[in-house]
């Protein structure tokens, strides 16, 4: 194999971009720049250090910060969620979403049939439905955020929604535009089921900026 001659190439030329082929650099659309390692992990761990590269010291720092985060987990009953690196583990979004839905529906209270072997009948309060495309001019009139929140005010239930990434979020935690853009379906959850959803809202606001 030929020896690659080392030439000094500017960062721009060698920067990897993910974009439609055929677009020359300097097109009007923004193409996603390949994230450096530190940025990827940084997205979820909120590390203050911005060093590039993954030297072993950095990794150890990450691991110890991760352990610290785990120690700070508020719900002792559930095992602390590991820091989520974007796109890891490599599981298809479809599969992740499907398993999340199945998990949340088995977590809901079921009724046991009397006598004999127990079977579970799912007690769904409301069926999920999708929000259709909403134009920039406004939203479909039959439902909006305040109506939904008002409906449930004072009850044991909170409105939550599943966004494009398959994460379940509290309605009202992110700006309305972001909610309308990313909401795939709604679910009315029991208050206790919905604990732990709010913290993700801040990260979502940050992450959306690349769109």
């Amino acid at each position, binding site marked *: 194999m030929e020896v690659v001659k080392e030439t000094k190439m500017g960062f721009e030329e060698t920067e990897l971009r993910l974009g439609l082929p055929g677009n020359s650099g300097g097109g009007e659309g923004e193409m996603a720049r390949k994230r450096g390692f530190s940025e*990827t992990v940084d997205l979820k761990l909120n590390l203050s250090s911005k060093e590039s590269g993954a030297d072993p010291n950095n990794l150890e720092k990450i691991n110890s910060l991760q352990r610290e985060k785990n120690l700070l987990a508020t719900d002792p009953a559930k095992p602390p969620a590991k820091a989520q690196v974007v796109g890891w583990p490599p599981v298809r979004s479809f599969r992740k979403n499907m*398993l999340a839905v199945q998990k949340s529906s088995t977590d809901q209270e079921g009724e046991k049939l009397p006598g004999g072997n127990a079977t579970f009948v799912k007690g769904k309060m409301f069926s999920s439905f999708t929000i259709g495309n909403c134009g920039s001019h406004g939203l479909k009139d039959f439902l909006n955020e305040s109506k939904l929140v008002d409906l449930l005010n004072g009850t044991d239930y909170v409105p939550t929604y599943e966004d494009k*990434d398959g994460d379940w979020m509290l309605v009202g935690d992110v700006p309305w535009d972001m909610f309308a853009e990313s909401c795939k379906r709604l679910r009315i959850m029991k208050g206790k089921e919905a604990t732990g959803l709010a913290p993700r809202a801040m990260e979502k606001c940050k992450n959306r900026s690349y769109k």
Partner: protein
Amino acid sequence: MNYFPDEVLEHIFDFVTSQRDRNSVSQVCKPWYKIESSSRQKVFVGNCYAISPERVIERFPGLKSITLKGKPHFADFNLVPPDWGGFVYPWIEAFARNNMGLEELKLKRMIISDECLELISRSFANFKSLVLVSCEGFSTDGLAAIASNCSFLRELDLQENDVEDHRGHWLSCFPDTCTSLVSLNFACLKGDVNLAALERLVARSPNLRSLRLNHAVPLDILQKILMRAPHLVDLGVGSYVHDPDSETYNKLVTALQKCKSVRSLSGFLEAAPQCLSAFHLICPNLTSLNLSYAPGIHGTELRKLIRHCRKLQRLWILDCIGDEGLEVVASSCKDLQEIRVFPSDPFVGNAAVTEVGLVALSSGCPKLHSILYFCQQMTNAALITVAKNRPNFTRFRLCILDPTKPDAVTNQPLDEGFGAIVHSCKGLRRLSMSGRLTDRVFLYIGMYAEQLEMISIAFAGDTDEGMQYLLNGCKKLRKLEIRDCPLAMQRF
């Protein structure tokens, strides 16, 4: 070669079916190129932007079947921006405009709209087969168009697509005259379906051999469908929650007794595990079992089921099977060729699957050559043992849920373990690695992985040297997936 008339050559080429072989044939000489191109019916395009539809049409005017792949593999894991592309409309529009006799369309990771589905249904009179894998951009309205207008439809296979569900009226759109269905898979649809329409459709489809239902199809309907379709070869069960003492259950057992041809089983999207014994009837003949969407099936009931599956060749399962369950697989399924162990909770992981399960499989299953294994931890010792036990791996994909985790016992990088794999498995074509890895592993791969065609790397290596070893050594490498590795890309 010059003595054969074109018709004879064409007849000979008819026996050459693999895409790669036909590509080779076309490169022998100009006359062969011409004949091969004009007679080719099946085309595979691995990257929809690699060639224009017009060029494909020009070269292969007799094209009847096309497979197109759009977004790169990493798109599955949210590593590609949502507006990247991969639209199939330009292809369909070009085929329609040029009056191509398209009969089969298979798409993977592409965006297809309802308008496009409608165009397909109206433009190709002999359209027979639509297979969509990990696609998006369409709704059940598009499916309604396909159902309504494709009079000779044989196959509608929807695998893991993101479909906007406008409720189940699309099933009613199959006209009464449509009796040609061989394969119907709508397991990925989230909404309700018209159950009466489904029953009637099955009743008038004598050739139906593959049927995969979604979660909205309950047990009593399944039982009725099975009574009408006893010749099914591939079955995807929808919802499986019921009382084992009920009449429905007894009817199901009767129906399953008649289904002597089922070789492939999947689904159980909602399942009560204690009622699985009905399926023990068909387990002995199963060659393929996919329980990777059945978190409700685990523990003793799962192990009982597996013990009946003595002829299994392919198993897709969740990690709640545990090492103990994998040991049952290893002792029961001696014909096993491929196994995939998926995480039931992608972020927390299930501590029940470790290197122990992997070693058990490698030791118990002599024909095992393809594995995808999500686990909590791994050790070099285990990988070295696996490599010794099973030199026949062609696909080896290991995913440790903590991507940079070292050897769980020695705390060393996993270089030696993966090195043993590539050294021993001389036929290895696909490799995915994870865990703590240095440049050393790439040295091993470059030295030994001569047949390697695809490799996926994440968070691995220290310097550019690793990449150099890899790219210098693996002459057959076609696909390289790499993310978050410390490289100064300037060298490449």
